């Protein structure tokens, strides 16, 4: 590897840098993103220090300092949705990691049959989340397939969207169904990129499959597991589509998450300031996780 690349990456960069052209290459994307991501975020930031009910005609945003932040933090529905979001994220991601790892180990190698299985298992991940939501609404309805299958083993019926706890379990179930394939795919790729020597050595030493998994595969896979878990966590806590379709936050506030809370505050009650303040707190939480992720990734890269 080193022999075929005599010039280290750092010096390679800018070797023929014709700066004006490269700036021109970069400019459209940067300008576009400045207008479509920096400006909206800045505007949300500005709005979060103002109170403004958009549905009252003739009103304009009025400066209230940190007032909206205080109001949102004191709002019990916000607190509830923040807790829900954290539980939802942690719960789904843990289960997805476990199931995804098991599946990855099962499908990672082998011939045509395994490849076909792998393709089929991908399907939930590509399905439109709104359609997934509608589909599970049908499956989990009072007289749906779910309750029928439960009745076959003398369980239930479960009124999924009436009982708050079951509703929460239901939205988690749907997320797990849809996103375990992602974990499986990533871990399958990670398994394929592990060096083969330790496994050979272990086999020669007569290690059992379980010993190999416990002492070789798992430790070598751990960094990828952590990064994948964090990536999934960041996406899971943004859940919106399936909640909107399945429960729209109900019954009561049982499945209210931060995204649906912000959506309702902003676009149903037109409480723009409150929605903006909640948005920024949510954003900061995600940035913190992102920084942890980048740090971890850099460290993992160094170990490799």
């Amino acid at each position, binding site marked *: 590897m080193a022999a075929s*690349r005599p*010039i280290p990456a750092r010096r*390679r*960069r800018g*070797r*023929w*840098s014709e700066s004006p*052209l*490269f700036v021109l*290459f*970069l400019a*459209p*994307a*940067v300008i*576009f*993103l400045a207008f479509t*991501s920096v*400006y*909206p*975020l800045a505007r*949300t930031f500005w*709005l979060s220090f103002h109170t403004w009910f958009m549905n009252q005609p003739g009103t304009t945003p009025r400066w209230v300092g940190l007032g909206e932040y205080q109001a949102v933090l004191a709002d019990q529905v916000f607190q509830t949705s923040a807790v829900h979001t954290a539980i939802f994220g942690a719960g789904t991601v843990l289960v997805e990691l476990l199931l995804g790892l098991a*599946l990855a*180990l099962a499908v990672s*190698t*082998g011939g045509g049959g395994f490849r076909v299985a792998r393709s*089929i*298992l*991908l*399907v939930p991940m*590509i*399905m*439109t*989340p*709104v*359609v997934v939501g*509608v*589909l599970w609404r*049908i499956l989990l309805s009072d*007289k749906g397939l779910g309750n*029928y299958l439960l009745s076959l083993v003398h369980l239930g019926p479960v009124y999924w969207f009436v009982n708050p706890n079951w509703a929460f379990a239901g939205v988690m179930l749907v997320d797990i169904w849809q996103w375990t394939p992602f974990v499986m795919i*990533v871990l399958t*790729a990670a398994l*394929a*990129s*592990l060096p083969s020597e330790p496994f050979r050595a272990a086999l020669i030493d*007569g290690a059992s*499959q379980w010993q190999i998994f416990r002492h070789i*595969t798992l430790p070598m896979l751990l960094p990828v597991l952590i990064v994948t878990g964090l990536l999934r966590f960041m996406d899971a806590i*943004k859940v*919106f*589509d399936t909640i909107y379709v399945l429960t729209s936050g109900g019954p009561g506030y049982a499945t209210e998450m931060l*995204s649906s809370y912000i959506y309702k505050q902003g*676009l149903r009650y037109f409480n723009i300031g409150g929605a*903006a303040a909640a*948005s920024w707190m949510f*954003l900061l939480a*995600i*940035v913190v996780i*992102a920084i942890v992720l980048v740090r971890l990734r850099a460290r993992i890269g160094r170990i490799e």
Partner: protein
Amino acid sequence: MAVTTRLDLPTEMPARPAPRPRPRTRSSGRVWTTLRWLTIALALVVTVVPFYWLVTTSFKRQIDYLAYPPTLIPPAWTLDGYRVLFEQQDLGHFFANSVVVTLASTALAVFLGALAAYSLARAKFPFKLNGILAFWMLLTRMYPAIATAIPYFLIMRDLHLLDTRQALIVTYTAFNLPFVIWLLIGFYEELPPELERAATIDGCNAWQRFWKIVLPLSTPALVATAILSAVLAWNEFLFAVMLTRLNAKTLPVVMSGFITDKGTQWDQMTALGVITVLPVLVFALAVQRYLVRGLTLGAVKE
């Protein structure tokens, strides 16, 4: 990307003729193989049954989809769900909305993204701009979309772009662009520079190198990112429901309309579900190799 040799994984060992077969390894191998197949079979059932339900319900008569115990295999098939759906909604128009918005935003994001990623991978900008921009891209991919929802609504309202395809195209390009750049930077940094160096000696400028050498060489990565962008755009719901009312509705928005209006018209709902899911599914499975590549590009360093 550095993987050049076919790797032997432990799971494959028992199936291969080992030079000195050990009885213990072989028997634990048999248990292992059984476990593998059980796991896969269970996962397949859990994956396929809901999908089967989606498709069959769309062909069921009302007495069948409302029946309890549920009719596992429809005794009679009907196209009524589809017929009523097409009669009551201008579905062709909404389908076209989805297609146009998806294609336009994907093309824009991949073109602008490839240019920017190439520039970031090859040129060295002052003030550590390379690193800062790369981190910015990562953050832009990660922040909650809902945090920009209200400003987008206000901006589009002020520009009189509410309920237009343009609004959605701009929005989806904005989401997919950082993601495309993030994926492609890694790819371009790995691309061996020899060809480009030779082209430079022959008098090619950066644009010619990009257009004639780098783009053709990076087709697989471009396809992978384009597929992911297209799937994300096709499936997007939050901004579609927020920025459209009637004219520019995409399929997911039409779908969500059933939730409030007509609670149990399951034949129509699932028919629309099939229409929404099928194109992306066929497309994604056809180019599956690229899809998997794109998905793992961000998470696994090969």
